[in-house]
């Protein structure tokens, strides 16, 4: 019987099974499935590690790029310059702040601690009230004499020798402040200076606090009046 049985008789007793149609076995009954799971574990771990590396790398380049971009210059177009009459109120900057500059400045002469051929001059400036402080701005004062610009002296630079001057010294940032201000803007200039143009600069800032544009207002000021008082 066995001898006469067809060659595939034993195979005929087991049902035909497609290799991809696996029967339902419990995990204990199929060691191959367990090894397949562990085979996926390794590439899964590798993928997780690579993903972390990619995220760290991306964060590094992004942060470093931001840092370098912050250090690099931003191109600022030429300032919009407008001249105004002295002793007359004019609207300055995008918030149209009322400003008045006296055309008669004061020559305070030399003070201790400056070079022999230099002196201090000052110009009187009144700033009208603004409804709100402008946070997207920075301000500055300059005196232009024969094409050369001098930035104003801050109160902290004057307080050691002349604290009474420092008390009424206006700073550039006050151009953006909301309150009404009245005071003096001080400059350290060569002895030969007797007149100049007082420039008020309004620097508009973007979200990164880079300067986007500059609006300036200039007023001619004379410094031929010598003052020796302490006011």
């Amino acid at each position, binding site marked *: 019987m066995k001898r006469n049985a067809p060659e595939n008789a034993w195979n005929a007793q087991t049902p035909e099974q497609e290799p991809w149609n696996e029967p339902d076995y419990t995990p204990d009954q199929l060691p191959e499935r367990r090894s397949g799971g562990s085979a*996926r574990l390794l590439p899964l771990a590798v993928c997780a590690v690579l993903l972390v590396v990619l995220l760290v790398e991306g964060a590094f*380049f992004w942060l470093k790029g931001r840092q370098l971009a912050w250090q690099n210059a931003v191109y*600022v177009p*030429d300032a919009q310059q407008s001249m105004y009459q002295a002793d007359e109120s004019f609207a300055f900057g995008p918030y149209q702040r009322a400003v008045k500059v006296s055309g008669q400045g004061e020559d305070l002469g030399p003070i201790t601690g400056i070079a022999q051929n230099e002196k201090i001059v000052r110009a009187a400036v009144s700033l009208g009230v603004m409804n709100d402080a402008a946070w997207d701005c920075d301000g500055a004062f300059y005196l232009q004499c024969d094409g050369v610009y*001098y930035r104003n002296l801050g109160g902290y630079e004057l307080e050691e*020798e002349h604290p009474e001057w420092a008390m009424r010294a206006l700073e550039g940032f006050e151009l953006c402040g909301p309150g009404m201000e009245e005071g003096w803007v001080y400059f*350290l200039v060569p002895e030969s200076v007797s007149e100049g143009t007082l420039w008020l600069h309004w620097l508009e800032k973007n979200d990164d606090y880079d300067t986007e544009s500059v609006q300036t207002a200039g007023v001619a000021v004379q410094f031929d009046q010598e003052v020796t008082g302490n006011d």
Partner: protein
Amino acid sequence: MIEDTRKGMGLWVLAGLLVLAILGTGIWGAMRLSALSVAPGWYASMDGAQIEPVQPEGAEEGHDYYRLRFVLTNNSDQDIYVAGWNLGVRPAKGYEYAVDVWHPWDESITLEKEPCVPVGCIGDVELILEVDPEELETKTLRVALDPYGETPLELGEVELP
């Protein structure tokens, strides 16, 4: 069993793609950082340079002195101060310190304010140059905006008379 192998293969393919992404990000990032690191820290230009010999008070023997004047346009987002620590003048070749921006030293001076060219403005610049004629190998001088610790910006060249 075959299904498991396919899933494993898929993860290995994903790992390969991640490796490629890491390499690509690295190359792109390095190129971007390189471009940013050599980008100018300033936007400025020099025009109408003039140079003439002078003999300033306090001049030292053995040195020649020249007054350099030019017009500077500042389109940077910072003021450009007119001072030796900010504007550098060097010979085009030879000993670097054969030329220097000269400023008389006075220890009694405690309040000093250099002129500047404000943001967005055009201003006149005047520098006194101190030249060591024995060390000078060329009459061509390079003027640069060269603040300490920042990438210098070449403004142009001038010829000594």
